[in-house]
């Protein structure tokens, strides 16, 4: 693995002077996520514009939404962010895998530090996959009730906004798989592995926050 070489004996600098710099991958991820925010801003703008033009279509179609189900799905997604953050804490202490038994996050010996990044990320993955499955179920239900992408302006914006969010969640799931696989492939779980785990968590938290916004707008505000 090539790293920019460390110049220990540069004139005038103390020996072993490595400047503690901002992590380029992390800053770059945040800047990219900021641009993703504008992507979703476009979707929100589309939603509000069409809603302002077709208020009666909204009144008619929002009744189809299953609020208790989507609330449960939302709570699941928010909790997955908590699991993800627990995985980040494990990655930050460079612990790829469980110290003790894999089936419990807590043991008497290790406390809540039993699970490594891998176990927490697997749990996050399962929660995220359940969320997407819930979305698919919800879509199937709504389509059977006549709400489709082309049925009305409401159908279009509903599937566009939640669908693009669902694609983002799916992308995050693929990223989690790659990160989990890396924890198996790496001989030593080091900074590079921890960094990729942390930026994946940034993405996951971002997608989660976007969903909270979408949930409030689509299911609560209507």
């Amino acid at each position, binding site marked *: *693995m*090539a*790293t*920019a070489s*460390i*110049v220990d004996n*540069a*004139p*005038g*600098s103390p020996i072993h*002077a*490595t*400047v*503690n*710099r*901002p*992590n*380029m*991958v*992390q*800053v770059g991820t*945040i*800047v990219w*996520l*900021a*641009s993703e*925010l*504008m992507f*979703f*801003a476009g979707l*929100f*703008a589309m939603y*509000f*514009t069409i*809603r*302002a033009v077709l208020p009666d279509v909204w009144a008619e179609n929002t009744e189809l939404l299953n609020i208790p189900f989507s609330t449960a799905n939302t709570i699941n997604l928010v909790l997955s962010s908590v699991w993800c953050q627990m995985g980040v804490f494990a990655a930050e202490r460079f612990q790829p895998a469980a110290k003790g038994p894999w089936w419990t996050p807590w043991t008497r010996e290790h406390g809540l530090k039993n699970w490594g990044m891998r176990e927490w990320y697997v749990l996050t993955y399962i929660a995220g996959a359940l969320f997407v499955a819930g979305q698919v179920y919800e879509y199937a239900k709504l389509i059977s009730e006549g709400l489709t992408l082309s049925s009305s302006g409401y159908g279009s914006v509903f599937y566009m906004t939640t669908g693009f969010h669902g694609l983002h969640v799916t992308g995050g799931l693929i990223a989690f798989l*790659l990160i989990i*696989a*890396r924890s198996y*492939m*790496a*001989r*030593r779980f*080091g*900074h*590079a592995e921890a*960094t990729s785990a942390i930026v994946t968590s940034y993405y996951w938290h971002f997608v989660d926050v976007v969903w909270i916004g979408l949930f409030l707008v689509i299911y609560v505000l209507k």
Partner: protein
Amino acid sequence: MKVETRLFVYLGLLYIPVGTVYGFMTKWNEPLGFLALYLTGGMSLMIGAYLAYTAKHIDARPEDDPLGEIHQGAGEYGVFAPYSWWPMPLGLAAACVFAGLAAGWWLFIIGVPLAAVALIGWVFEYYRGEFAH
């Protein structure tokens, strides 16, 4: 990192009142502008807050020192591939996938496995073979 942080935070703090003024001037009847301005503020604040958070957790950089010298910036910058072919097949496969959305699903179906191979090849390039770590 004060300059970078302030740049983004000030921009964020500018857009939010501008969005409010816009809302009042359109009597909140125009649903797009104020929302876009608020979220632009959110975008700037997001970067600004992250830079402020980062600045707290690292040493002052040579760039922040008016009397800093170039050589003080020496050291580890991160992990970089010396060279890699993988982005090219991934780019071609992604082009195939997105062209498939427009031209026909058969192209999409060809593109997806190619993209999977290229993505996995790229992600695990330094986890196997000569440079495995």
